[in-house]
């Protein structure tokens, strides 16, 4: 790491920070993927996690995923709450016996020295009602701040994980703020340069936060969104139904991934409707159930595909 130019050092630039994590996990044998090209609420929704966590095949991957939480928009006025932020996601299946050590080494790689910082694993049971998923693990604290989620998946999309995958999620902005020592996310140095060459996180994203907050809370077209939800739901079911084949002596599925895209879509549309405040408390539950049904059906299809089934 010492060979890195100053502007690429993880404690100097946001992009250097991301690159350091990617390099670290690449060295552990992970495939480094690029973000999934769809809007989603968390990195867990990426098919590289949700679907690849299922089935017996080995799978080690890491990627950055922009996460959209329409309700968390604050018009750019809150120092650390945003409707769009980055998660760094690692999944290792089966979970290696030294996953905690690897995680701590990854912190060292981004400049968090465990002889100076107080790093703790504090109980946190993870559950995603929309994904029909749960796992046990911790939130990882660094000097009293939650910086990552660490989960051993037990069930995803209604399917028991066999073997279990370990999942790590880093809140990138928050960690980078800590490492760079800034209190406001928009003050993060994005490119590690100084003076006129310096680009901040605010330069890149502040306007987007303002515009999307307006959109999410005030103008998002709810008629269209209600329709989109229904369309995505129908399409998902249609692709799932169409994908089944009787292949040899076992059932096969040939369209789990396109069907799952529609599940991701439905979930994001629901989040937008929720932010617009047009879904009542009782309806809310039923929308969550509908997305979960899609996720479960996709999970069931996935374990009948080439990548999801045994051998």
């Amino acid at each position, binding site marked *: 790491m010492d060979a890195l130019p100053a502007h690429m050092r993880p404690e100097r630039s946001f992009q250097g920070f991301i690159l350091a994590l990617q390099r670290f996990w690449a060295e552990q044998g992970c495939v480094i993927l690029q973000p999934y090209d769809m809007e989603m609420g968390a990195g867990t929704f990426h098919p590289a996690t949700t679907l690849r966590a299922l089935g017996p095949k080995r799978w080690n991957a890491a990627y950055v995923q922009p996460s959209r939480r329409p309700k968390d928009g604050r018009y750019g006025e809150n*120092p650390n709450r945003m409707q769009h932020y980055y998660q760094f996601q690692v999944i290792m299946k089966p979970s290696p*016996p030294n996953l905690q050590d690897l995680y701590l080494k990854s912190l060292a790689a981004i400049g968090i020295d465990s002889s100076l910082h107080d790093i*703790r694993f504090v109980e946190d049971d993870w559950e995603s009602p929309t994904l029909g998923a749960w*796992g046990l*693990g911790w939130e990882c604290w660094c000097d*009293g*701040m939650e910086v990552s989620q660490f989960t*051993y998946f037990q069930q995803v999309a209604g399917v028991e994980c066999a073997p279990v995958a370990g999942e790590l999620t880093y809140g990138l902005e928050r960690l980078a703020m*800590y490492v760079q020592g800034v209190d406001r996310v928009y003050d993060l140095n994005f490119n590690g340069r100084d003076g006129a060459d310096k680009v901040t996180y605010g330069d890149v994203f502040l306007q987007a936060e303002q515009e999307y907050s307006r959109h999410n809370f005030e103008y998002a077209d709810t008629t269209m969104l209600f329709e989109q939800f229904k369309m995505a739901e129908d399409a998902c079911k249609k692709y799932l139904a169409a994908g089944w084949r009787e292949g040899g002596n076992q059932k096969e599925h040939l369209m789990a991934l396109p069907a799952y895209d529609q599940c991701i879509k439905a979930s994001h549309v629901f989040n937008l409707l929720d932010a617009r405040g047009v879904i009542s408390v009782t309806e809310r539950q039923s929308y969550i159930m509908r997305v979960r049904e899609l996720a479960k059906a996709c999970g069931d299809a996935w374990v009948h595909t080439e990548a999801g089934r045994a051998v």
Partner: protein
Amino acid sequence: MPDLLLELFSEEIPARMQAKAADDLRRMVTDKLVAEGLVYEGAKAFATPRRLALTVHGIPARQSDLKEERRGPRVGGPDAAIQGFLKATGLVRIEDAKIQTDPKKGDFYIALIEKPGRATIDVLAEILPVIIRTFPWPKSMRWGERSAKSGSLSWVRPLHSIIATFGPETEEPDVVKFSVDGIEAGQTTFGHRFMAPAAISVRRFEDYEAKLKAAKVVLDPQARKDIILADAKQLAFAQGFELVEDQVLLDEVAGLVEWPVALMGSFDEEFLSIPGEVIRATIRNNQKCFVVSDPKTGKLTNKFILTANIEAADGGKTIIGGNERVIRARLSDAKFFYETDLKTKLEARLPKFEQIVFHEKLGTQAERIKRIERLVAEIAPLVGADVEKAKRAAHLAKADLLTEVVGEFPELQGLMGKYYALAQGEDASVAAANEEHYKPQGPADRVPNDPLSVSVALADKIDTLVGFWAIDEKPTGSKDPYALRRAALGVIRLILENQLRVRITDLAASSYLWHLALINSQWRLFSYDGAEDSSQLIACDSIQDWSKYSERQLFVMYGRARSPHEGDDEIAFPDQPGGPFRWPKIKSLPRDMLSFFADRLKVQLRDQGARHDLVDAVFSLGGQDDLLLVVRRVEALGKFLDTDDGKNLLAGIKRASNILAIEEKKDKRAFDGAPDAGLYNLPEEKALANAIDQVKREAGAAVQKEDFATAMSAMAKLRPAVDAFFDKVKVNDDEPKVRENRLKLLNEIRAATRAVADFSKIEG
């Protein structure tokens, strides 16, 4: 004798599960040992975030040999029986069995089975893996390569290594040989995750504990707590401050560290404008840090104490700095919430309660508040509270549930209401009632004594009890999801500790009326007084109106609810949301609830050392719904029964009751009614009759004045007359009329003493 050392080393165990897990481990291992005939001298279990450890000392090295005689079939019995016997006992030939002669049944076979005791280490190798596999974690998980197969080990978090050694103090112990899911038991563990992560080889508990300490692990949770508490106090003291002690937080924090290091940080003084409780909740719940107060003012200072898990290279500067940043951000949020809350008046929040369901069958929170306001108006005069203020207090008491701060920290409900009420200029008592109406929360909680708080607290709890009683959600066995036992105990303590004279059944009846009357936020109680249609219904606005009518004349307008007819047990609500279901009748619910109160009171008095049979003796008089008087009667009765007069009178009354019970059974009739003075032919009869008259008069008058001690002394005067009567008079006289008259006289004794209690319910 040899000792066992067991350690289960894993990834971080949730703090809240550690104490119970240590206890379970000790219990499971020692129970199994005892079941295997291995009685041990002592056992102790420990937990840290990464390990459960157990030491059991003084276990015999072997089980003792067992000798057993087993009786078999008779000699010459069927072959199948003999073969079965051989198989069951492990004998090779029947000739190996002894023959025993029984004079009645003839000869039969006896097998002598000798079961040699096994080495304890072998027994341990068998029981330990079973205990590990069946360990009762509240939640457990699978992990790693092996989780691909079914039947893989479940543990709270991944289990990495096991130490199991067994041997006498003076020798090198042996490893108990077993493996669980690929983990071989051995004698290796690891030190502190960051400060001493290397492997450590251990032999027995003494060197295990010492080597861990050298590797920066304090094994004993109590020792960790002691260190944290002492260091935190010292840090605060050094700056002239005082640690705000917090046992629950201390327990949790001790479960998050293996090597506790207390450090002090600070925050901006501007945050001290937030109420101290909010600062504390923020720092404690979110950051698991202690707060510090200034002994001069008794208020919080801008300091906090955190417990780190390492001795940092820079002495903790970085750690303190990081925690300060997080706490600053958290306190800014809290300050923002608090200041936002202050901008909205409490009553302006109330309309939102119309959308919030309290319970599907019991309506919205808004309806509940309306009912409590009605009920509190009836209670206030009984407890000396101002009616208008009490109504105002009840009106506002729940509003803080909708504030930002309470949303964030539910445990601050009530308290925030008080702050916000004061801030908007409410009367101090009205504001205090916001907080105090939730009290007492449990047997150890303080009982409020401001009449305003008392009236709202009673109304709140009675509304809850009556509502859940009406929809038949009473507590059963260990299930009490709505904490109704706690609510009833709260009512009892409010009444007794404030010496209140209220009738539980009246309050319950009122509350029930308001439940029935308030449907969809409309008051809809009408009397049915021969009305043919709704235009003839008379609105009832208060309990006084209601009580003028009989049950049959009352009904509730709700959808197609029908009027109850004489003999109906319930009121039907065909259209109620969540229905159709039936509610109990207005006059039966309070009676039913009173017996629940009687049970709770019994528990409460028994906990204070009173005799439960005395409570029964008072309640069995019937109609005892003034709890304060019940307790006074019980107290007077208890004192009286401690005297010789009391004991002897009780014996006399019991004797009279027994005779009566026998004769009543014999004649199949009761001997009630006044005895005929003309039939007395012995002086002792006349004396007893006179004494009864006098006692009735005096005790009756004393009871009227609620002077139970005097009533008891009056009753004591019966004793010589009763004693003399039993001494000299034969009850079962040959002349039937005289016998009947004497039995009636005995009945009078019983009747006279019922002025204070039913003595037949008293034991002894």
